[in-house]
């Protein structure tokens, strides 16, 4: 029976794949779920990766109904409804609107939707986690552990030093087996950032014989190898050091190492060769200040005080652990206009903008933290599209060209909304992980003034309700402020991994 189902599914996928060949086939995605791995065909249309809606329906057992009169498509799953309209780049899931990069496209008798539809539209419909990891072509569905594994050579040596990073932190067992070091990672699958070339005494990093193992292949001249896995900042790092066998130093010196770029000695590689980090400057915006006290708690706690206290804690955490430049939009009790806050971030060419606030409600029982990112109205959507269409291509020295997007300054956030949505998602998860109680609507999209003009991924964090007596006491405590700072810091780390994945290799 199971074989028959598998065969049927395979045949269906084959048919859909063959059909997709008719247009312009894209590389298939690999769906990873509790049930295993399977390929999903994609199609490229005008540079946008699309997936057939009937494939989605078959894979996820979702009912699809087309309403030709209204020009819409309705997907239903366990009483929940998702509506797609044929000409608008958005979907409505149980009354909430999510943005898509392009509207659904009709191809013959089937509908194609952008792959982003899966995490943004289908996930809330199924009430399941769907994570699209483009560089590794993985589509992760449900509660499965698929950490991102990357590797780098820190020093060619000898001794050769390398680091394997597993994000988020995952238990790992590392052993030496012959001419390789094997890392067995306790996960359902791995999102691998290699194969990677080695240097010095390491030949390279390769996917292992199991889906959850990684091989660090050692060179012929490798002697002892030391490896120490350690968890820090939500990431497991395996530091590997490979030395030449004792007494063979002279021989090693006589024969040039086979590495492609052998440095002359064990000195760390020059900083210039390190690619620009995706996070160099982070702006933290402590809400309100001066005469603008923000929310007033009944016990006299003022929002402006707490936001500054947490901002300072977060600055210390990020500066000391990440070595990233942090700028506060205010470092004392002064009023700063919303435009000046955005301008400070834009002028510093910051890579991330985090605004800290405290909430209020007419109902005393309302409590919990919430993360906001910008929602664009129609005008903002138009601005985003215009920015993409009106990109100015300028010639630069040496015959190359440079593309510059032109966008209204007060809608600068328009081009970052997708990344900001991801930022809000990882912040929400990380805050939860740091045991910060979250509100009933923990992640919201809203037209917030301070976020509209910042030209970088941005989120606003409401850390709790000052109108709730318990939370008013809580937000003053060092313990809670540290938990919030830690949660945001973890979110920043996760966001950095996400941005590194997105960066063109």
């Amino acid at each position, binding site marked *: 029976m199971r074989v028959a189902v598998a065969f049927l599914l395979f045949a269906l996928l084959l048919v859909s794949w063959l059909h997709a060949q008719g247009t312009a086939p894209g590389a298939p995605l690999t769906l990873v779920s509790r049930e295993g791995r399977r390929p999903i065909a994609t199609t490229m249309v005008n540079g946008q990766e699309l997936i057939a809606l009937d494939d989605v329906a078959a894979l996820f057992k979702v009912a699809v109904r087309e309403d030709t009169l209204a020009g819409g498509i309705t997907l239903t799953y366990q009483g929940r409804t998702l509506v797609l309209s044929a000409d608008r780049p958005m979907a409505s899931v149980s009354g909430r609107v999510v943005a898509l990069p392009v509207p659904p496209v009709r191809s013959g008798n089937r509908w194609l939707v952008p792959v982003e539809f899966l995490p943004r539209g289908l996930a809330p419909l199924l009430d399941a986690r769907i994570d699209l990891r483009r560089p590794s072509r993985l589509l992760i569905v449900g509660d499965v552990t698929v950490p991102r594994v990357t590797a780098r050579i820190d020093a060619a040596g000898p001794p050769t030093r390398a680091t394997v990073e597993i994000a988020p932190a995952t238990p790992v067992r590392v052993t030496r087996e012959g001419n390789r070091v094997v890392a067995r990672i306790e996960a359902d699958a791995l999102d691998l950032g290699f194969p990677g070339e080695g240097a010095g005494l390491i030949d390279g990093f390769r996917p292992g014989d199991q889906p959850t193992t990684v091989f660090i292949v050692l060179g012929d001249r490798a002697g002892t190898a030391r490896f120490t896995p350690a968890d820090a900042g939500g990431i497991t790092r395996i530091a590997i050091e490979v030395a030449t066998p004792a007494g063979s130093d002279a021989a090693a010196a006589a024969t040039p190492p086979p590495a492609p770029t052998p440095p002359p000695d064990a000195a760390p590689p020059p900083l210039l060769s390190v690619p620009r980090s995706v996070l160099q400057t982070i702006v933290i915006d402590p809400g309100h200040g001066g005469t603008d006290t923000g929310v007033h708690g009944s016990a006299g706690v003022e929002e402006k005080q707490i936001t500054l206290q947490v901002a300072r804690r977060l600055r210390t955490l990020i500066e000391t652990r990440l070595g990233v430049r942090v700028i506060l939009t205010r470092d004392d009790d002064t009023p700063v206009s919303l435009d000046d806050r955005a301008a400070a971030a834009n002028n510093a060419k910051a890579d991330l903008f985090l605004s800290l606030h405290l909430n209020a409600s007419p109902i005393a029982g309302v409590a919990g933290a919430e993360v906001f990112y910008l929602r664009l109205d129609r005008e903002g959507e138009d601005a985003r599209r215009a920015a993409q269409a009106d990109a100015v291509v300028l010639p630069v020295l040496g015959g190359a060209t440079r593309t510059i997007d032109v966008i209204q300054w007060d809608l600068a956030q328009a081009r970052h909304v997708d990344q900001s949505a991801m930022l809000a998602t990882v912040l929400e998860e990380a805050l939860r992980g740091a045991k910060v109680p979250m509100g009933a609507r923990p992640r919201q999209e809203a037209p917030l*003034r301070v976020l509209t003009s910042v030209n970088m991924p941005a989120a606003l964090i409401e850390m709790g309700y000052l109108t709730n007596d318990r939370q008013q006491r809580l937000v003053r405590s060092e313990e809670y402020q540290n938990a919030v700072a830690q949660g945001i810091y973890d979110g920043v780390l996760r966001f950095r991994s996400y941005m590194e994945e997105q960066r063109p290799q």
Partner: protein
Amino acid sequence: MTSRRYLTIGVGVLLIGLLAWGVMRSLERIAGVQPAVERIAEGPAPPPPGVPRITATLFYGSADGNELVAVRREVPLAEGTVPQAREILDAQFQGAPTPYASVIPEGTALRAFYVSERGDAFVDISPEVSTRHPGGSATELLTVYAIVNAVTANLPTVQRVQILIDGREVDTLAGHVDLRRPLERDFSVVREEP
């Protein structure tokens, strides 16, 4: 002598006004003009008899404080979009029926209302909406969308709403929600009345 003449004129004007109103109402009945919102529900505060009323959808904070709730209430019927909008907003700015919470600060009053040719409504409100606002992104969103939704849900000709305070354009009410542009309705924060 003069004061008596004024009194007579006053009473005359009043009588003519009443007559005109009566004629308008009967004409309406004959023409079969229906109010914009059709479902008549029992309002939490029953209106005094004799005043013609329509049912409008107003928005209040839910009992758990997390969302807006769409509640049908009766408001006085008025002739034309602008007078009707005034009636609706006046009712919206009153306190909330139990078990709901008002998300409009106490003392907030409507100063003016007008609609542009593009279908953008301008709601000019007294400064209490800002000065007495408790603050916080969540509540500010509920305040703004209670007003925007109350106008757009009841007046189909209005597409977008711009909030003004004391006749001027403003950045925000309490430092969060962008009010520099007209806003479209947002029902994602709204729960239907159970």
